[in-house]
């Protein structure tokens, strides 16, 4: 017995249009909120940390001594860029900020919720390499978040290293 399936075709088309819209919405959300943000200056870790071999702490001076790793002040950039690669467009932009004595408004990539008290100092003291949480930043031209930084992930690491997983360790 032959079925009359012609009436089903508009339903099928509608179903696939809804699916396509769902894929499009996920793609739009990723483009808008999840991919590496565009920074005011196209700073390349690949050049500074990989090609030139600068240590992370050369610029992020706060990492070993305070809770925050800190973004370097403009003066640190200008120590080299007053004379190095001064004709490149991004360095011209950097010099513009310096001359106007205006701070660069970097977009934060590795954010944690307000109720998490993460301290860089303790992790550096415990010999946790920067790449554990930040990935191979030296291979990135634009910094992106490569770890989920969720509680489960932090707890996995604490357990693996046999460190306390008491709530107050991070939520004090």
């Amino acid at each position, binding site marked *: 017995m*032959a*079925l*009359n*399936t*012609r009436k*089903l*075709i508009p339903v*099928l*088309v509608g*179903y*696939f249009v809804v*699916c*396509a819209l*769902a*894929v*499009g919405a*996920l*793609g739009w959300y*990723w*483009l808008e909120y*999840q*991919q590496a943000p565009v920074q005011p200056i196209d700073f390349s870790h*690949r050049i500074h940390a*990989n090609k030139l071999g600068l240590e992370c702490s050369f610029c992020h001076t706060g990492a070993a001594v305070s809770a925050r790793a800190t973004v370097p002040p403009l003066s640190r950039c200008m120590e080299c860029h007053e004379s190095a690669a001064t004709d490149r467009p991004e360095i011209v932009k950097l010099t513009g900020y310096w001359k106007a004595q205006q701070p660069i408004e970097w977009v934060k990539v590795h954010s944690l919720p307000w109720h998490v008290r993460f301290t860089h100092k303790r992790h550096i003291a415990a010999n946790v390499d920067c790449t*554990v949480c930040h*990935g*191979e*930043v*030296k*291979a*990135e031209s634009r910094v*992106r*978040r*490569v*770890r*989920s930084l969720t509680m489960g*992930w932090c707890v*996995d*690491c604490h*357990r*693996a290293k046999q460190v306390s997983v008491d709530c107050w360790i991070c939520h004090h």
Partner: protein
Amino acid sequence: MDILKNMLLPPGVEHLQMLPVLVVFMLWAHLPFAGIAWICNLLSLVFWRRNPAAARDLGRVAPLTWSTVCIFIVLPLASLLFLFQHFLFGEMVPVGSYILRLTLPIILGFLLLALGQHRRQAAFVAAGSVLLAGGYFFFSSVMNLIFTPEKWPFIRRPMPDVFSVTVVVHFKVFCLVSVLLAGAAILFVLFHWPEKRLPVDAPHAETLRRMALAMVSGGSLLLPVFMIWELYVAPEPALSLNAFWLSALVLVLLAVLAIWSVTMLGRSASRWIAAAFVGALAVSGLLILKDHSLQAAANQEHWVLLNESSARALAEWQGQRAAQLAKNMVADDKLGEKIYNDRCTACHRFDQKVVGPPYNQVLPKYAGDMEKLKTFLRNPVKVDAAYPAMPNQGLTELEVASVASFLLKKHDEGK
């Protein structure tokens, strides 16, 4: 699994360019055939008692012979083991050893299926199907692990983390693609392939045709849900525009397949079967590409560093080889004299100053130390402020050795 690590050489630059192509090709050579064989044998169990002829026909959709098992199962799995070891060279994740552990149950599963079909033993087919279900579930978890690098430092078990949502969804996608492919393959082999097609009056032909069409429509309709779910649960660093474009392309193909299969269900005979089979193969190929795009995006930093270290290792090796060649080089005096006449005499004489200093003045410092003269000739630097710097002549190692030997000999003769 240190033996496995020790067997590997660091991948070369050219090898790295070919690696993604080979990974996708090997997965495409393996997964569609494996999925078709697995689902068709599972279905044959359903017909085993009620309709033995239908069960036998389902068993010959993806025939498991020595050659098909070698070409579509053993060879791709063995290649994937080494390809993924190279893809993740230097990383702490033991993907190669996981694939090695999976290879044995998967091959055993296919051998049991082949034995069951050959001897008409349902128990062997059932055991093989269960073994394959387990094997491909773990295979999904290994593929999933590759695009989840944040889990790598915490691997403690001999098998990867299997019961996460992403793994289950990934396995569902594999099952649905296999159902879709098996449906299209049943139609292609039993209703289109001239040598293998069923006789028109075969009593179970219509049952198999309708079942195959239902499999294609069911697979095409359910696959988008799990594909979107997979994108939703995929880790953030693994996503890229490619993953979304490829998913959209898969949706277009699935829509065509769904409309075709539903339309054919309403007819007494099926048309465009070959095109539908090619479409189903294209869906599986695009999904493999999408999976690879997730793995590539999640490991893009590792890939950059691997390429750089490969280029460095190659340059180092070439340097060592050039130095070794230079050390063993036999100077050719005639070649040296020719270079002297063609190039050196433009600026130098032995006994008079031209553009450069006379040889009799500069060569004594190289007497007994030809290596020092060769180093200068390879890369001339300004020595005497009274003369301009000598331009680099771009000589080969043999030319350097020959001209250095000729100059020192001629200088010794003139003393």
